[in-house]
């Protein structure tokens, strides 16, 4: 009797699979949209990257433009609505002026926001000519005071009277691009090495995994310190920047390699891979055309989650004086400037880069989490 059984389940014809990529991403996107926080985070992250991209346009002034009169000037804020003398309402962006005094004994300037003086602010204000991306000549900035001689410090000024907002915007470019470049490099190493290990298995796999375990068991900061200390000291700022990125990714690839390897191991035995192998497709083709697309979403999620670590690492290294150094403007170097008690006590607005770090890392984490959930609703 039992031999006659017929299972109902297998009788349904399987719907023809649409190309794995599209359906997977479409599905992923739909699931992703359900995470409100992740969607908001995506927008925040996108905003930050847009700021990084258009730094020259968005920064009101040159990040190195100093002013003796406005050292440690507090933030003016940006106001939109004002009550004029007649008690009527006026609209339009403006900032307040400053009243300043120099205290030669205590060696400082004291600022009072002068609400009597309103300095009108313009969007798409005219500026000195500059090059966007280094080659598009422009004479318009996103925002600026009507009279360029007036002080304009929405987020306050640093010890040299440099505009914190502009420095922050330019720092965003460096810090975020380090994260992105580092992750891209890590991703490259991770996919190639982890992919080969997972695909071929055997001794190469165990050797790779030993190396990964080994690198992961090294405490990172000493490793960074050693490598950073080993960098030729006469390298230019730009070379240092690339070297730091490389150092960060030298350690970052291991995590991604593990993820990729794990996926490869489980995919290797999947039917569609076997089918492709039976079709006589080359290993390279199988890896790039069949396997990688099928878990690209996981990789993207893992990569997104790796970016915050990179950003944090850059700030930490710069903080210890081993990463980027002035005059390069990054969140790390800005924080290095702000890491004294004086700043905490009297110029807390210099901690704005710290806030940015927190915000972008929160956003990237939520975004990455959402992506991961969307890519794999049950797994991790």
């Amino acid at each position, binding site marked *: *009797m*039992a*031999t*006659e*059984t*017929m*299972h*109902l*389940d297998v*009788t*349904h*014809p399987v*719907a023809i699979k649409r190309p794995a990529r599209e359906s997977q991403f479409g599905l992923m996107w739909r699931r992703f949209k*359900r995470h409100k926080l992740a969607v908001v985070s995506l927008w925040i992250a996108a905003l930050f990257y847009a700021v990084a991209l258009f730094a020259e346009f968005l920064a009101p002034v040159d990040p190195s433009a100093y002013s003796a009169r406005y050292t440690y000037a507090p933030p003016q804020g940006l106001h939109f609505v004002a009550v004029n003398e007649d008690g009527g309402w006026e609209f339009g962006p403006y900032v307040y002026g400053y009243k300043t005094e120099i205290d030669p004994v205590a060696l400082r300037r004291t600022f009072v926001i002068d609400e009597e003086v309103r300095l009108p602010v313009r969007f798409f204000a005219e500026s000195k000519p500059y090059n966007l991306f280094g080659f598009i000549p422009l004479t318009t900035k996103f925002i600026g005071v009507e009279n360029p001689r007036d002080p304009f410090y929405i987020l306050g000024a640093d010890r040299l009277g440099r505009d914190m907002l502009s420095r922050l915007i330019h720092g965003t470019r460096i810090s975020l691009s380090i994260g992105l470049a580092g992750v891209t490099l890590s991703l490259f190493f991770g996919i190639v090495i982890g992919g080969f290990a997972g695909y071929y298995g055997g001794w190469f796999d165990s050797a790779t995994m030993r190396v990964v375990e080994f690198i992961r068991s090294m405490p990172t900061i000493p490793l960074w310190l050693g490598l950073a200390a080993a960098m030729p000291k006469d390298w230019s700022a730009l070379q240092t920047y690339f070297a730091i990125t490389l150092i960060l990714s030298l350690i970052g690839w291991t995590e991604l390699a593990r993820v990729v390897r794990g996926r490869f191991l489980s995919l290797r035995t999947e039917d569609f891979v076997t089918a492709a192998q039976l079709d006589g497709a080359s290993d390279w083709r199988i890896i790039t055309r069949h396997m990688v697309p099928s878990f690209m979403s996981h990789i993207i999620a893992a990569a997104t989650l790796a970016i915050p670590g990179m950003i944090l690492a850059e700030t930490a290294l710069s903080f210890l004086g081993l990463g980027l150094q002035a005059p390069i403007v990054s969140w790390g170097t800005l924080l290095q400037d702000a890491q004294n008690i004086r700043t905490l006590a009297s110029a807390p607005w210099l901690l704005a880069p710290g806030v940015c770090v927190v915000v972008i890392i929160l956003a990237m984490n939520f975004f990455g989490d959402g992506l991961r959930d969307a890519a794999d609703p049950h797994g991790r």
Partner: protein
Amino acid sequence: MPLIPMDAKPILTIKDMSIVFSSPDEADIEAVRQVDLTLSPGKTLALVGESGCGKSVTARSVLRLLDRNARIQRGSMLFAPGDEPPTDIAKLKADSLPLRAIRGREISMIFQEPMTSLSPVHTIGDQIDEMLILHERLKPKQARERTVALFDQVGIPGARERADSYPFQLSGGLRQRAMIAMALACAPKVLIADEPTTALDVTTQAQILDLLRQLQADFGMAMLFITHDLGVVAEIADEVAVMYLGDVVEQGSVFDVFAAPSHPYTQALMSSIPKMARKADRVRLSPIKGTVPAPRDRPEGCAFTSRCPHAFEPCATVRPERTALGNGHHARCHLLTRQPAEVVA
């Protein structure tokens, strides 16, 4: 009140039960609608249907093991052991003491995949002892003795040593035997077997079915047997209920239903079973055309409309009534109450 005339008083009566799944961003889905089932001591009710038809959900709802997003929207589950007034399980709180007193002790359950249904990091004995300690208030030593005895009873060789094994150290058949031993530990009045043989190979499957039958004879419990395998139904069940997309489309004694399937879905199921015949006489099996629609695409009316060869005008919009066909045989089909003006092919 028994719907089917029975020798014994029913022990569990499910009446008009609907189960709804809700999700934060989609409309609620009624996974089980208006189900009536009755379990009697010493009898086996088989619940048959394809994956996703709601049979497991129904079974789990008896022990209130459904996920947090599922709720019993209407209906009752009256559990009436002995002479005490019946308890409506549907009204009990999910983690309440009365419910926990029923779980495992009065009603217990066997699951499909014994490998994953047993904790991999606890010994099998430990997982069974626990129940005895909990419900029978035995000392750990006594509980272990009982476990070993149970192992003997379910035919696990070397029972004492096996009790100290981990699930992954046993074969699939032994694991399922252990699972059965666990379910029977407190001599429950109702046993729910959720596809207990699906994951096993054919020989083992037969052994397990024999064992279950044997144990039912020994313990006299009522059994709710979930399966998608009509062969298994014929082998073990007294009564059968066929489910399709949340509806019990037909129910009755195994004999009646197999002899005279009244719902087009049951008919289709029957015709998909291969018959023993010589090679030359064999006919092609006729698979059911189409695929099971997603629950959210289920029509207002009869769920089977989209695949039914006899579907006609009211099917898609009006839900067929539960129609008695005598001798406790019921079906939900418009064909039983009205004549189609014109068969829509």
